[in-house]
């Protein structure tokens, strides 16, 4: 009875009934949202308290830019309740909660793998705690050690040779988004009750391995929810009950997210789609005169401050793949509802406003779900924010809505999933360009000479023949796909068993859709190489052992990135082909196969490990990032480049197709209003033509070169690279150079 009374108070003036009788945040949102079609005029500046908290953090940021990791608690494996309350500036913090007892003090999460902990500590000259080491090497098996118990020698050889790289077999897989809004809307007690009901329904099911696994997982989920309450109690909050106002809604939601990042060092730890949810509470408080606009902005600013200081322990090898310490606290704004209304709210604007109030930053990874039908004022404001900060990415809501409904979010960079109803088994990517070289060399690695793939017949003769290479490439893709699915099954079986995301999964329904997210790198290199073989003359050059390690290419050939169907169709065909090879093989837990064309910053590492290619790329040279054309080859302007990428089929790459576009701010004689209109038209066009994703950078090469030489002048310089934003000065020199070598368009959208 007490429960009902409290819910009534928390839910006063909210409409809709369905979300009250079941866990259904989506129904709550569409029943109560106030779509906003205006502009940014109402926005407020940062509050004194916000500035005080932000100021307090600056020395940490500066120190970190110089030193890297500032501090680690090496003695305390992290959990929801491992550390007491921590604060930045208790008097001025409106939203509270840290991963450990101190800001920038990183926690260790050894269940993913002990190697990550030991490697990470060693890199900063610290020793692991002997007792912790003994526990996780002797008594408690980790995900990492379980995977290697399952791997085949072939999988190990593939990892070693960089044909499959970045697999989450030594670290947390991430790419799971807990529906953190549930904590605020329902309170943890109601969530526990609902989970217990779901759990009780399993009693009648015969205990097959699958059912027993689920029962065990749900028991862990229930413990996690109880621990989450305890964690919040440490900060003086009872989150058993639903949030009663905007401040509590933000705080409760953040506690849910905080719990996730205390327990899981996942590659990508997205926030979901929270700002329009917050807006409903803010609107109610504003209507009740309990909140001012300045206070509403303060809530969002302070929430975002917390999302900017998430830190994990990682190794130098990991940093080489995913540079700049990203964690993809991805937050989605914009998008449309199924009923035709927009889901843009004032809180979406407030979220963007943090980039002004606190300055640009890579996190949270702000993602605009773009639809042609979005209100014009919002579209224009997004373009303005992109121009000022280069911190936004855009993804195609018109493509995703039919797939995922209207309450999905983006995990990591480009992976759409229904909130609370869908998760993915993340699987990094394979090197498609190298796979082509394996086809040419009969499964031998072009760098080491080692026989890694099956010993098929290598190409013979003095000139490469397109049909012959394509047939061999197809066979090699079939082998690679099989090995890849095999590895992924091992990884996710182990991860579920030894590094289960108990809290994040507690914030999902029991019965969820699972996808297994494969990926490819080097698409443009492979397509250009095949184009060279098809349209020009490519002579293989063999070393004394008969290994083809170089090519002599004469004649001209079309290259990807110029909207030329002759080569763009080859690229699209490769995507479809590899996807179909993946689909043949059964996945762990019946997950649905998906694929992404995304590299993060690993295009550098992939290029390093790949020999000369027939397109004229030299050994070691970086690949184009994500689905991008090779640097500089998209020589006919951004429009041609965009259209080539838009031609890649989303139906065969449903985990996302990443494209980064860098334009130089140029002649503005037509004025801002006109310039923004054309940019809006350009984005409408790109997405209308089937484009999936765009990282939009508006900056000049000269700025970046200056930042390389004078990092102190650019502490907050943010730039988007394949799927995420990074603080430029925190990239390695090599990656900075790679970014500078990318194509910058002077066409000026």
């Amino acid at each position, binding site marked *: 009875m007490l429960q009902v009374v409290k819910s009534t108070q928390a839910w006063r003036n909210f409409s809709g009934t369905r979300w009250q009788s079941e866990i259904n945040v989506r129904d709550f949102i569409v029943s109560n949202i106030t779509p906003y079609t205006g502009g940014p005029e109402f926005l407020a500046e940062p509050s004194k308290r916000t500035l005080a908290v932000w100021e307090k953090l600056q020395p940490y940021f500066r120190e970190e830019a110089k030193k890297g990791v500032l501090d680690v608690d090496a003695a305390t494996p992290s959990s929801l309740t491992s550390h007491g309350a921590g604060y930045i500036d208790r008097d001025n913090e409106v939203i509270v909660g840290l991963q450990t007892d101190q800001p920038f003090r990183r926690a260790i999460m050894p269940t993913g793998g002990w190697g990550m902990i030991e490697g990470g500590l060693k890199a900063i000259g610290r020793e692991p705690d002997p007792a912790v080491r003994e526990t996780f090497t002797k008594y408690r098996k980790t995900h990492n050690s379980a995977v290697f118990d399952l791997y085949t020698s072939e999988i190990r050889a593939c990892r070693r040779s960089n044909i499959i790289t970045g697999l989450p077999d030594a670290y947390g897989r991430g790419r799971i988004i807990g529906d953190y809004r549930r904590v605020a809307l329902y309170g943890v007690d109601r969530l526990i009750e609902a989970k217990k009901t779901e759990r009780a329904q399993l009693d009648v099911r015969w205990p097959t391995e699958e059912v027993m696994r689920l029962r065990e997982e749900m028991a862990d989920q229930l413990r996690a929810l109880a621990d989450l309450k305890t964690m919040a109690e440490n900060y003086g909050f009872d989150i058993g009950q639903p949030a009663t106002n905007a401040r509590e809604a933000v705080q409760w939601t953040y506690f849910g997210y905080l719990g996730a990042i205390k327990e899981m060092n996942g590659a990508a730890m997205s926030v979901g789609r929270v700002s329009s949810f917050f807006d409903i509470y803010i609107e109610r408080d504003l209507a009740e005169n309990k909140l001012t606009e300045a206070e509403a902005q303060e809530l969002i600013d302070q929430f975002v401050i917390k999302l900017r200081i998430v830190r994990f322990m990682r190794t130098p090898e990991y940093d080489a793949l995913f540079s700049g310490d990203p964690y993809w606290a991805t937050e989605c704004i914009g998008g449309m509802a199924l009923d035709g209304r927009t889901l843009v709210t004032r809180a979406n604007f407030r979220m963007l406003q943090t980039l002004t109030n606190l300055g640009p930053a890579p996190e949270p990874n702000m993602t605009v779900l773009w639809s042609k039908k979005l209100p014009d004022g919002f579209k224009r404001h997004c373009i303005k924010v992109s121009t000022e900060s280069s911190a936004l990415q855009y993804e195609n809501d018109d493509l995703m809505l039919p797939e995922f409904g209207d309450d999905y979010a983006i995990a990591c960079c480009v992976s759409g999933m229904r909130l609370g109803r869908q998760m993915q088994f993340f699987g990094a990517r394979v090197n498609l360009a190298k796979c082509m070289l394996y086809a040419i060399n009969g499964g031998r690695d072009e760098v080491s000479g080692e026989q890694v793939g099956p010993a098929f017949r290598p190409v013979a003769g003095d000139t490469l023949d397109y049909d012959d290479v394509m047939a061999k490439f197809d066979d090699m893709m079939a082998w690679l796909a099989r090995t890849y699915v095999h590895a992924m099954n091992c990884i996710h079986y182990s991860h579920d068993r030894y590094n289960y995301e108990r809290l994040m999964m507690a914030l999902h329904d029991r019965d969820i859709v699972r996808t297994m997210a494969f990926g490819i790198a080097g698409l443009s290199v492979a397509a250009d190489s095949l184009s060279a073989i098809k349209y020009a003359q490519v002579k293989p050059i063999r070393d004394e052992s008969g290994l083809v390690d170089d090519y002599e290419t004469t004649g*001209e050939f*079309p290259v990807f990135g110029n*909207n030329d169907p002759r080569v763009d169709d080859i690229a699209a065909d490769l995507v479809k082909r590899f996807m179909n090879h993946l689909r043949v093989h059964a996945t762990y837990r019946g997950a649905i196969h998906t694929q992404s064309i995304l590299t993060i910053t690993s295009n550098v590492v992939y290029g390093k490990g790949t020999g000369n290619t027939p397109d004229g790329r030299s050994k070691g040279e970086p690949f184009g990032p994500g689905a991008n054309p090779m640097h500089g080859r998209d020589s006919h*302007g951004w429009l041609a480049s965009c259209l080539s990428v838009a031609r890649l089929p989303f139906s065969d790459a449903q985990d996302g197709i990443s494209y980064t576009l860098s334009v130089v701010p140029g002649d503005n*004689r037509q004025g801002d209003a006109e310039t923004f209109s*054309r940019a809006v*038209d350009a984005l409408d*066009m790109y997405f209308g033509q089937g484009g999936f994703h765009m990282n939009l950078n508006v900056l000049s090469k000269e700025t970046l070169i200056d930042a390389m030489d004078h990092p102190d002048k650019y502490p907050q310089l943010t730039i988007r690279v394949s799927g995420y934003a990074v603080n430029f000065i925190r990239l390695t020199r090599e990656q900075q150079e790679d970014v500078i070598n990318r194509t910058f368009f002077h066409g000026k*959208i």
Partner: protein
Amino acid sequence: MAADPLAGSRHDLRHDLSPDAPEIENYSEGDGAFGYVHSYETGSRLDGPGIRVTLFLSGCPLRCQYCHNPDTWRLKHGTHISLERIVSRLRDFAPALRAMKGGLTLSGGEPLAQPAFSGRIFGAAKGLGLHTALDTSGFFGVRATDLYLENVDLVLLDIKSSDPETYRRVTKQDVEPTLRFAERLAAMGKPVWVRYVLVPGLTDDPANVEGVARFVAPMKNIEWVEVLPFHQLGTFKWQALGLNYELAETPPASKDLVERVHRQFRDAGCNVR
């Protein structure tokens, strides 16, 4: 790298691709099924309304001191290419251009050096539902027949000076044809954006600006006067072609100068930007 004869961008030096091509004064282009093209670029928002594909044709009667594409002066610099190929390439971009309320701009070089070829390209572009713009010096304005201009929605007209002497110094040609062409466009009511390249020491004389401003101000068809400040981006092409570049020491137009020239046009009653 590309088998496409249209490889490369306007910013790449491209020359001597058709060594056997005649000079423009000896050129007879027949029915315009083939022509000489330098390069093309996509995505411009400056060469007309919306977002454009800009095709740079080869061959120009002018020899402007500040030209940033001297590798488009002669037909032989460009690629000999069929109309059909141009149109098929344009077709790949048409849906995107329509979606962005843009179209095709022919530039160069001087598109009117090849009136049959460029006229047929415009005709095809209109057939694809695209907005069309002609970027011209007007020197060959008489070659643009009324029929030709029917397929041209906008003319970007370079008026480098109204004073014959200055014009000759800048371009080595007469200004008369350009002025007559401007008057003809005005009489037709054809939309025009006048472009005025502002080069310190060459075209910045207040009297010269005043002359152009007074000439264009009464023309109701002129939607904009665009002042384009001189830049040095094409210098490397002059050097590579072994040409004598007289503006090597010329500084870019200062902000104050640009503002002064804007004011002159504005005071004369023009929409200037």
